[in-house]
C-alpha cells in the first residue's frame, strides 16, 4: 500500500471523539490522511480505492499512549523498540510517548538521539520520546531542556520520581515555561509515600504491608498546582488516582492553569483488593486504590476532568516480580491490554465509546501537539478497527511484549483489534 493509496472503510461504527458521536458510515482515506467521513449517504469508492468492509465494527482514531517504558537503553531484555512497537500495534496504539526512566536516563540530547534512531529503525508505530526533567533524574539540576526540545523531546519528566526539592522544581518549571515545554509530574508527597507498597487501610493492615495514605497524592498535586500558579508552566499530572485529589484538579483548571491529568488503565479497572495474596503483578506506583476511589476517577474520566488514559506500560522480567511483595518491582505491561481493559468501562455502562477515545486518543494527541487522535479531514489516518464485543481469555504468553507481567492473565475480556493503521498503512492485522 503506497502513501498515495486510497482506502475506503465501509460500514463502520465511526467513533468521533471531537463531536462525541458514534455514527454508522464510511471513512475515506487518501495519501495517509483522512479525507472525510460519510454518515448520511454511502460513499462511492474512487477508482483504484481499496475497500475494507467493516461490517459495523468500531473504527476509531489510533490510541496515543503517554508514558510507555521501553527497555532501551539498559534493559532491552525487558522490552525493545521492536517488541514495544509490535505490542502497541496489536493493541491499537499508533503513537507511543516513551518515558526517560531508562538506564541510563534520557537526560542529554545525545541519549535522546540514540533512542530516536533506535525507534526509527525498529518500531512500527510512531515513537515520541520524553526526556528527564533533571539530570540523572536525581532532582538536583535541570536538564538541557532547550537542546532536548530541539532534539525532539515532547515532554519532560522524572518518571515516578518526585522532584522533592521545591526550589529545583520551581526553577525547572520556570525555565520550561520560557520554552513552552510540557512538564509531566508524578504527584506524591515523597516523604509520606516513602517505602509504601500499597494504599493504607484495612487491606494493607491485614496483609502487614507498608501503606501510604491516599492523601499523599493530593499533597503532591497541591504543591505542583501552587508551583504552576507561581511559574505559569505547562503541566500534566501523570496519574490522578484518588477521589480526594479531584477537587484540587478541578479548581486548578477552573482558575485557568495550563494543567491536564492522566490515569493508568489499571487504576481505572482494578482496586487494592486485587493484590489478594501478595500478587506482585498487581503492584503499581502509585498503588491500586479503594473501590470508592476507582469509581470516582472513572467518573472523572467520563466528565473530562481527567483528560488522558494511558497504559503506563512498564515491562518487568520474572526475576523482578518473583519476590516478596515489598521487594518486587512495580508496574505492568499494558500496550496490548489497554483497549480491552478500557472497554470494560464501556461494557459496564460507565463511559461511552466517544468519551473513551477522547481520553485514549484525542486528548493525549492534543496535549502533545500532534494532529492525530481524531477522524477530522486532514488528520493522519492513524486508525484502529476493532470488535468491541468479541470475547477472549487473556493468555499472557500470547503478548508481543518481551515481558509478560500483566495483571490480566487469565482474565475474561472483550474487544479484539481487527486492524491498526498508521498514516494509512496497515501495521497490524488480526491473524
Amino acid at each position, binding site marked *: 500500500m503506497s502513501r498515495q493509496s486510497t482506502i475506503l472503510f465501509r460500514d463502520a461504527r465511526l467513533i468521533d471523539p471531537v463531536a462525541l458521536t458514534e455514527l454508522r458510515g464510511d471513512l475515506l482515506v487518501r495519501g495517509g490522511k483522512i479525507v472525510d467521513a460519510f454518515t448520511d449517504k454511502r460513499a462511492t469508492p474512487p477508482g483504484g480505492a481499496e475497500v475494507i468492509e467493516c461490517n459495523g465494527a468500531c473504527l476509531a482514531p489510533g490510541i496515543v499512549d503517554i508514558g510507555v517504558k521501553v527497555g532501551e537503553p539498559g534493559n532491552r531484555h525487558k522490552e525493545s523498540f521492536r517488541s514495544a512497537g509490535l505490542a502497541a500495534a496489536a493493541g491499537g496504539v499508533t503513537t507511543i510517548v516513551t518515558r526517560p526512566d531508562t538506564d541510563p536516563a534520557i537526560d542529554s540530547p545525545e541519549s535522546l538521539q540514540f533512542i530516536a534512531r533506535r525507534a526509527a529503525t525498529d518500531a512500527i508505530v510512531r515513537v515520541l520520546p520524553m526526556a528527564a526533567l533533571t539530570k540523572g533524574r536525581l532532582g538536583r539540576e535541570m536538564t538541557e531542556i532547550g537542546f532536548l526540545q530541539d532534539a525532539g523531546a515532547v515532554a519532560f519528566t522524572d518518571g515516578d520520581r518526585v522532584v522533592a526539592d521545591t526550589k529545583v522544581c520551581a526553577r525547572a518549571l520556570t525555565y520550561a515555561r520560557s520554552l513552552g515545554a510540557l512538564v509531566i509530574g508524578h504527584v506524591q508527597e515523597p516523604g509520606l509515600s516513602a*517505602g509504601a507498597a500499597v494504599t*493504607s*487501610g*484495612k*487491606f*494493607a*493492615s*491485614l*496483609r*502487614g*504491608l507498608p*501503606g501510604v*495514605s491516599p492523601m499523599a497524592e493530593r499533597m503532591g498535586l497541591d504543591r505542583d498546582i501552587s508551583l504552576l500558579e507561581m511559574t505559569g508552566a505547562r503541566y500534566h499530572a501523570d496519574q490522578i488516582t484518588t477521589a480526594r485529589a479531584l477537587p484540587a484538579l478541578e479548581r486548578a483548571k477552573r482558575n485557568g492553569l495550563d494543567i491536564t491529568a492522566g490515569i493508568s488503565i489499571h487504576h481505572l479497572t482494578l482496586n487494592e483488593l486485587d493484590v489478594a*495474596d*501478595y500478587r506482585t503483578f498487581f503492584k503499581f506506583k502509585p498503588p491500586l486504590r479503594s473501590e470508592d476511589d476507582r469509581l470516582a476517577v472513572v467518573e472523572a474520566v467520563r466528565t473530562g476532568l481527567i483528560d488522558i488514559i494511558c497504559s503506563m506500560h512498564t515491562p518487568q522480567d520474572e*526475576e523482578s516480580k*518473583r*519476590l*516478596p*511483595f*515489598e*521487594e518486587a518491582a512495580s508496574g505492568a505491561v499494558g500496550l496490548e491490554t489497554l483497549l480491552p481493559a478500557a472497554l470494560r468501562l464501556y461494557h459496564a455502562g460507565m463511559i461511552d465509546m466517544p468519551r473513551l477515545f477522547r481520553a485514549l486518543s484525542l486528548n493525549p494527541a492534543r496535549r502533545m501537539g500532534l494532529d492525530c487522535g481524531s477522524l477530522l479531514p486532514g488528520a493522519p489516518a492513524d486508525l484502529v478497527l476493532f470488535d468491541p464485543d468479541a470475547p477472549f481469555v487473556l493468555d499472557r504468553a500470547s503478548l508481543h511484549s518481551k515481558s509478560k507481567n500483566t495483571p490480566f492473565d487469565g482474565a475474561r475480556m472483550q474487544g479484539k483489534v481487527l486492524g491498526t493503521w498508521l498514516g494509512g498503512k496497515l501495521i497490524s492485522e488480526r491473524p
Partner: protein
Amino acid sequence: MTFRASHLLGIEPLHPDEIRTLLDLSDRYAEENRKGVRHRDVLAGMTQINMFFENSTRTQASFELAGKRLGADVMSMAMQASSVKKGETLIDTALTLNAMHPDLLIVRHPQAGAVDLLAQKVNCAVINAGDGPHEHPTQALLDALTIRRAKGRLHRLSIAICGDIAHSRVARSNILLLGKMENRIRLIAPPTLMPAGIAELGVEVFDDMQQGLADVDVVMMLRLQKERMDGGFIPSEREYYHRFGLDAVKLGYAKPDAIVMHPGPMNRGVEIDGTLADDINRSVIQTQVEMGVAVRMAAMELLAQNLRARRAAKGVMA
C-alpha cells in the same frame, strides 16, 4: 478431627473448627509434656528445617524442641549468615532446600507475604513462624491455648491487645483468631501505632489505657518493635511507659482476675512493669512459653498427617 490444610501460613484461612482441633491436640501435648511423656514416633523419619531469616531465640528453640520431642530430624539454619547474603533470591533458596526433600519447613522472614511465596514453590508442609508484620499463627494459637486454660473458655471474653499494634504480626493473628472464636477485642495504642482501617475488622479502638482496659478478662501486651520503626512513632520510651506501659494501677482497670500476657521478649519498663510481669498470680507469660512447644507439636503432627496422606494419594512414599 478437621484440619486439612497443607500449610499453616496464617490464622486468616482457618475455620473455627480447625482452630479447636489444633487447640485440643495442643492441650493433650501440654499435659503430656508436663508428665515427661515423649512421642518420638510421630515425626520419626521426617526432616524439619528451621529457616529463620530474622533473629529469633525463643520461637526457634520452641520449634526445635517441638520437632525433637516428636522424633523429627531437626536442622536449624541461620539464614542471615547464608547464601541470602550472597544475593540468592528467596525462591532459589526455597528450591534448593526443596531439592533436599524436607518434610516440614519452619520459616520466619522480615517481609509480609514472603512465607506464602515460598510455600508455593516447595512440596512439603510450611509453617509460618512470622512474616514481617503480617501473621504469626503459632503465637496466636499458643495465646489462645493459654487463655482457654486460664479462663476455662475461648469465647465471649473481653480481651485487650495493647501497644505496638502497627508493627505486630502477633496482634494481627490474635485479632483474627480471637475474632473467629467470638470474643470482644479492644485495641489500645497511641494512634501512631494503630494500623489504618483496623476498626473495620470489628474491633474496638482506644488510645487510652483506662478506658480500653475497663473490665477486660485478658490484657495482652505487645513488644515495642523498635527494629521495625523507620522514624519516631512515639516521643520517648518514658512517655510511652507513662501512658501505655502496663503497671499495677492500669491493671486495676481490668477485671480483678484478669490475666496478663506478653509474647516476649519483653522490654521491661517500656511496655510492662517488671514486677507485674513476674507476678505469678496475674502473669501467664511463662505459661505462654510452655504452651508454645505444645502448640507447635500439634501443628506439626497435623501437617505431617496431611502431608503423608497427600503423598500416599500421589503414590509417593512419605
